[in-house]
């Protein structure tokens, strides 16, 4: 079978599994919403302040939600032996790893993108800023899944993996956060957001080309 077919089969399988455990997907989504909603509570209801923070807060919440959902990426496959079997297929690991990352993004990144505008409205973002927010998430959340996959692969089977993965991955997420939130701010302040979005795009391309190899190496290390 061709490489593309393998990725397609994997995607179908992952989506089917996600459908069977919808609870997990929804939980991450709710986490995103709750974290973003905590801020107005912590900071106070001043609309000007909230407008200024809006983009940044939604992006931070997206980062944290993405990070929490990383546990799902390889852990269950590792525990039940499926990961070994995937490594032992003749397909090059980079192929199915790309498929798994894509599936992770579809299951935990895309829902965030869909509800983000609602959160943006809560913070009083302008319409233009909402559009930019969605675009920046569209370009940025795949990077979160890609980089996160490295952390998830390295911490497979370790105790305290959840907190550890955050320590590994959050610092690497920072450029995405900066450009993502920067794009929204640019739109709000009228400075324009093309520069930020195109930087996000280049990060995405770079990450897409490099991380599957790193993940493949990380999985080999963890499976030994």
């Amino acid at each position, binding site marked *: *079978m061709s490489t593309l077919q*393998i990725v397609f*089969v*994997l995607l*179908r*399988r992952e989506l*089917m*599994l996600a459908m*069977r*455990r919808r609870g997990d997907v929804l939980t991450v989504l709710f986490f995103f919403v709750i974290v973003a909603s905590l801020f107005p509570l912590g900071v106070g209801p001043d609309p000007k302040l909230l407008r200024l923070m809006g983009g940044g807060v939604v992006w931070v919440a997206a980062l944290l939600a993405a990070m929490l959902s990383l546990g799902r990426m390889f852990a*269950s496959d590792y*525990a*039940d*032996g*499926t990961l*070994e*079997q*995937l*490594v*032992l*297929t*003749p*397909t*090059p690991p980079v192929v*199915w790893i790309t498929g798994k990352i894509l599936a992770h993004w579809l299951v935990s990144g895309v829902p965030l993108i869909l509800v983000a505008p609602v959160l943006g409205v809560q913070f009083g973002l302008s319409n233009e800023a909402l559009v930019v927010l969605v675009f920046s998430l569209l370009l940025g959340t795949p990077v979160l899944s890609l980089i996160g996959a490295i952390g998830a692969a390295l911490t497979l089977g370790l105790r305290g993996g959840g907190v550890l993965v955050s320590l590994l991955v959050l610092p690497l997420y920072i450029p995405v956060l900066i450009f993502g939130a920067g794009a929204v701010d640019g739109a709000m302040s009228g400075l324009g957001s093309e520069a930020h979005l195109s930087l996000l795009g280049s990060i995405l391309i770079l990450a897409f080309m490099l991380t599957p190899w790193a993940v493949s190496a990380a999985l080999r290390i963890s*499976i*030994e």
Partner: protein
Amino acid sequence: MLEGKDLACVRGERTLFSHLNFTLNEGELLLVQGANGSGKTSLLRMLCGLLTPEFGEILWRGEEIGAARETYHAEMAYFGHAPAVKEDLSASENLDFSCRLAGIPVDSDEVKGALGHLGLGHCLNLPTKSLSQGQRRRVALARLMLVKAKLWILDEPLTALDQAALQLVQTLIGEHLRQGGMALMTTHQPVMITGIVPKTLPLTP
């Protein structure tokens, strides 16, 4: 065909075995024997290419398995401690996906046939989480029938199985060998396959 040359394995700080040599030809069965913790699983994972030997090399048809990865993995099937079965998918979905991911498209009749042969005909469509431990392992065993690999590497395939299933699995291995396949397995139970005299490979530190 499968050759191990002067293999050594170190886990943590302990050398589990060293200077291990063996060859496995078509139609042969190699039983890896040793006490708990003697390194049987480690050896099998090494032979799969999941673990890098501390020393020595593993050859498949004369080529190093790392170099010949794709062809080797296309001809090999591994059955590990973990059954590689997704709890939320049914037995037939599990089999279907795992064969496709291994690059072998199967149709649903074949899947049904294999599961039926292993006595799971009545629970094809139950999610595997409601199957018992032994039934889950049977699902994993059914994969061996479909993947049609030349080399089987089996880590304790007989645990958690009842008497009937034991018999079935041994017959399966026997047939595989008679058709020119090879198998390498570990088990703590006695193995009796008609017409086959297994080679043994004791593991000692």
